């Protein structure tokens, strides 16, 4: 069992996702970056679970997948709402509230 490869892959995906959330301005790309972080989590959970032969890791990953689907559903609804009201999905344009 080569645990390190899985953990390194997950860590790399986590970093890519965090970079995307912080830098990208396009709504869809930000949502995709969040999905990348959540998938890094799933890789970690499944790798740890199969290392220790414990089913809890796989179960946790299933919960993460189900909840991530709901979360992104809400996110797409908000992006769609923003497109209807502003004709743009550039998150940096949402700057009415500040101070």
């Amino acid at each position, binding site marked *: 069992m080569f645990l390190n490869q899985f953990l390194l892959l997950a860590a790399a995906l986590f970093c890519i996702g965090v970079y995307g959330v912080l830098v990208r301005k396009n709504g869809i790309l930000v949502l995709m970056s969040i999905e990348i972080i959540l998938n890094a989590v799933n890789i970690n959970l499944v790798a740890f679970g199969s290392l220790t032969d414990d089913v809890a890791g796989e179960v946790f990953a299933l*919960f993460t997948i189900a909840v991530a689907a709901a979360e992104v559903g809400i996110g797409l609804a908000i992006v769609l709402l923003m497109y209807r009201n502003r004709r743009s999905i550039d998150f940096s344009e949402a700057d009415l509230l500040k101070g």
Partner: protein
Amino acid sequence: MLALLASADFVRPPIDWHAAAPELTLLGFGALLTMMDIGWLEKGRKFAAPLASLALLATMIPIITLAVDGNDRSMFGGAFVVDNYSLIMKAMFVLAGYVVVLLSTNYIAEGDYWENEYYGLLLSSILGMVLMASSRDLISIFVALELLSIPAYLLATWRKRDLRSNEAGLKYYLMGVFASAVMLYGMSLLYGSTGSTLLSDINAAVSRGADPTAVVVLGVVLVIVGFAFKVSAFPFHTWAPDTYEGAPTPVTAFLSVASKAAGFVALMNIVFVGLLGRDDVVEPLMWVLAAASMTAGNVMALRQTNIVRMLAYSGVAQAGYMLAPLAVIGEVPDTALGAVVTYLVIYAAMNLGAFAVVMAVARKTRSAEIADYRGLFQYAPGLTVAMTIFLFSLAGIPPLGGWFAKFRVIEALIDANNASGVVLGVVVAVNSVIALYYYARVGIGMWAEEVPDGDLRRVDVPVSLVAAIGITAIVTIVFGLGFVVGDFTDVSLLAGG
């Protein structure tokens, strides 16, 4: 593994229906509300708010019977625990939810948006909070967190054709989802390094050895950072003022009280049950978060001209006060737990009350500018007295509830009997003085100054708002008389029997 699963006889884990009754009651009523919306459409509109209040009152019944019964109950191998601590928090969430329904009744009915779904989402968010109070396992904490957050994103975006409400929901959603993703990564590291998702097993595993491993430290930091977003602690508070300003005001009250309290409950479950043996990692982190939140929150609140934004920054500072006892969990765990719980209950009452007055005043002035509170006493003396009680309680002036809450926090910090605790106690005291300036500025404007436009028409306050202000004011005053909720449990019993 599949073959193994197929050959094994499935045995249903024993379910204690009484212990799960509060959650099941909320779930049942929430489903009923949603079915009513689908089946009756517009005809169901007038039943939505009464049914939601009934749901919350009905949920109080099993909570009270469980408290009278008094036995600690534990299900699913210790993932779901009912004890005095979780019952107090459940009762607080349900009562805070009830006050939010009172605040929402007129506000939502008078807007031209769909009403039934609002209460369905509110109940589902409260269900997540009630579940969180009993969660003692990473998976159930995660599911409860998402169950309370996802409806809250929708509630913040409720006025869907209003650009400011859209923006409020967008910022809340992005920060919330990002924080929960980071927190999950931390949870996966904790699971990997301890081999269990159960908090008491995690505590046993991380306590081994004098020094923590790097993976454990990274996991702890990421999990705590994730919850710091939820409780809007500095520097993870940036969403809070914008979301509070743009969201409908009852939703703002709900987010600033119930959602923040749920973040604290999750943090307490993880810290007191799962990481108590690693206080050398948790304490410095909490110290920095607490000191930074109260100082930054108060300084930024000083220059606000909008009362909702001022309350948002004051909420950041209050989160700092509540995090402070967590910086001494190694020395005095029981006192620290009691101080945080006491502060949460009192904070819920006084902050909901302040938002109730803000809503009542906005019915006449249509504004949340602090300048429009000048001369409030001349046309709304009752509201002025109530607002003064809530603001002075938030500032921590005796004999109101907020004073007692701060007293418990400083008591815990001093009891720790070490330099870091005493220094943090001094930081709390200095910050209370800074905070008094901006709370008192609103108070002086209300009592001493003239009405800006000379308009002395009275404010038309609906019965439900009067009830909300009355309930929260009574709780704020009664707790100031030293009615103790904190000494109810021992930290070592939180993991369940």
